[in-house]
């Protein structure tokens, strides 16, 4: 069995890549992509630990798998809503450049 640490390392790399994507990308779609990447990286870590716990025979394994499902569901919902907002914004202004969306401030 592949050791958990490798999964977690992969998850960390994916999370970091997603984070960099969030911070550097200007297109809203790419922002969503990066966020999805971060969410799935977290999911990967959760699943990896769930497998580790189940191998030991603890009860936490099921919790981990349930958590992964919830995260997936939330990610999906969030993307749906986000894309909806994005389309609404796109209708008003042609670009999806997030740097131009700066009305949320004092």
């Amino acid at each position: 069995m592949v050791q958990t640490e490798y999964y977690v390392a992969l998850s960390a790399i994916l999370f970091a890549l997603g984070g960099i994507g969030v911070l550097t990308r200007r297109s809203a779609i790419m922002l969503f992509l990066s966020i999805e990447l971060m969410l799935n990286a977290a999911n990967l870590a959760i699943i990896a630990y769930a497998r580790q716990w189940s191998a030991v025979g603890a009860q936490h394994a099921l919790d981990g798998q349930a958590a992964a499902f919830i995260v997936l569901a939330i990610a999906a919902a969030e993307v749906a809503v986000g894309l909806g907002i994005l389309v609404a914004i796109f209708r008003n202004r042609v670009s999806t450049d997030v740097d131009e969306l700066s009305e949320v401030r004092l």
Partner: protein
Amino acid sequence: MNDLVQLASLAPLLALAGAIINGLFGRSLRGNAPGVIASLAVAAGFVLSLIAFLGVRAGGAVRVRFGDFLVAGDLNIGLGFHFDQLSVLMMLIITGVGLLIHIYSIGYMQGDDGFSRYFAQLNLFVAAMLVLVMADSFPLMFVGWEGVGVCSFLLIGFWYKDLKNASAGRKAFIVNRVGDFGFLLAMFLTFKAFGTLDIQAVNAAAPSFAYGAAILTGIGLLYLLAAAGKSAQLPLHTWLPDAMAGPTPVSALIHAATMVTAGVYLIARTGGIFANAPSAAATVVWVAVLTALMAAIVAIGQTDIKKILAWSTISQVGFMVAAVGAGAYWAGIFHVLTHAFFKALLFLGAGSVIHALGGEQDVRKMGGLGRKMRVTGTTSLIATLAIAGVPFLSGYFSKDAILGALLTSSPLGNYGGQILFALLMVTAGITAFYMFRWYYLVFAGEPRSSAEYERAHESPAVMTVPLGILAVGSVLIGYVGLPAFLAPNAIQEWLAPVMAHVDFDHLNTSAEWMLLLGSVLVAAVGLGLGYWVYVIGSGELAKRIGNTPLANASRGAFGIDRLYRGLFTEPGEGLAEGVASLDRDVVDRGLTGVSGAVPLLGRLLVLLQSGYVRAYAFAMVLGVLALAVVAALIGVLA
């Protein structure tokens, strides 16, 4: 017997009642009713004082307490009166002379718009003055003390429509307040030293302190400050000449007979402290003698009929204060008594003249009025001779007593008693001189202004009868204080039980006679000089030396008023302005400036709210990172 004496506690209440009746309802009363009511109140007070006098004569001092005033732990000051030989004597003076002046005022203030207001305030004054002398504790005395100050303010500025009069009242109040400051501090220090503010207790405990103890000296000097304010001694004398702006009977009552003697009373009352603090007592005498001398010099150069008398009062009160400072408390009070008669008489006579001339007060426009105003002229002459110290009149005996005290006072000897005696002798001579001048310029010689002379007429009986009574008093009252080596000195014996003990050198009989004759000589020289200058020389000498520095100093009262204006009034006003603008511009803005830091902080923080999604995202990442680091550290530590 005690109950009868205690009945005298009603005296101030009756005067207060008179004040309230006249104050609230006076305008609706017809004719002279306010004056009559006020006079009746004071007359009742006089009767009660007489009863108290007889009661104390028979049975000694009486105390009465009506309840508590200020209480807190050790502090227990009650509303109490103390009737002893000194206080009943003062009460008699206040109500007796006060009654005569009230009656006189009915004539003098006839037709004035504020007739009832005048009598209300005059009654209020009598009430406060009575409380002052009857009080058994310092705070209660202070109630009367400030009360007379308030009434003085009201009465000096009585004709307030002329702002000059109002300003004179204001000046009196403020200078008095400086003295009150001294009184307050003296009370605080007394409580600190003695643990009580009961007058009898303080006097009894004073000898237990070291002779000349610093704390006693401090208390004494502070009481001196208070007395100087109320009795118009250096340096707080400047209000009295200006106070002549008030109606003349007010000047007679308040600024001759009673209020200005409150300082003398105070020092006599606290004799126990001064007897044990010789340096404080000596300071009192020096201040008093210098004041007396200065005021006498100034009186020579004055041209207002009342201002001459005002400076004379300052000088004579200086005599009284010198006496009590030297330890001869009875002599000071004796002079209070005689001075009350002849000075009140002088003022009322002046008032009679002013009333007759329709308001003229400049002596240069008078002259020869004695021929047209016989009663006023004669009584004023008697008063002049009395104050000059002509033998067998009252002033002679009281002045002689004071001079003798200065010469023989044992503690004073260390502080220049002989010099002070000499200075006061000179002052007595000057007194005779300027009083002669006063009388001559007003009543004798040739009229200098025929218009005024024509207008002059004798005043109505309601004014001349009190003049007559006071004149009789000025002659006779001195006999209560005959020199001890010749005859029983009634007043000294009367006051002995309440006076603190001070050592006096004993003069042999020939020295005593020398003293008596010396006083006569001095008076003769003064009067003679006056006669020579004004009658024989028709005032030529006076005109010729009229521009010498001394004469100018005399006329301008040594420029002290101007000095105070430059030293205190103007800097004071400047300081007040300065504080006000300091508060407005510095303190206010300063703290508002500090509070300006908050918007500044806000504006800094607003920069975070850029609206850039990526900046927010970055912030979130940083936050998570920080949390992770903290968690790891805690994990490590745990």
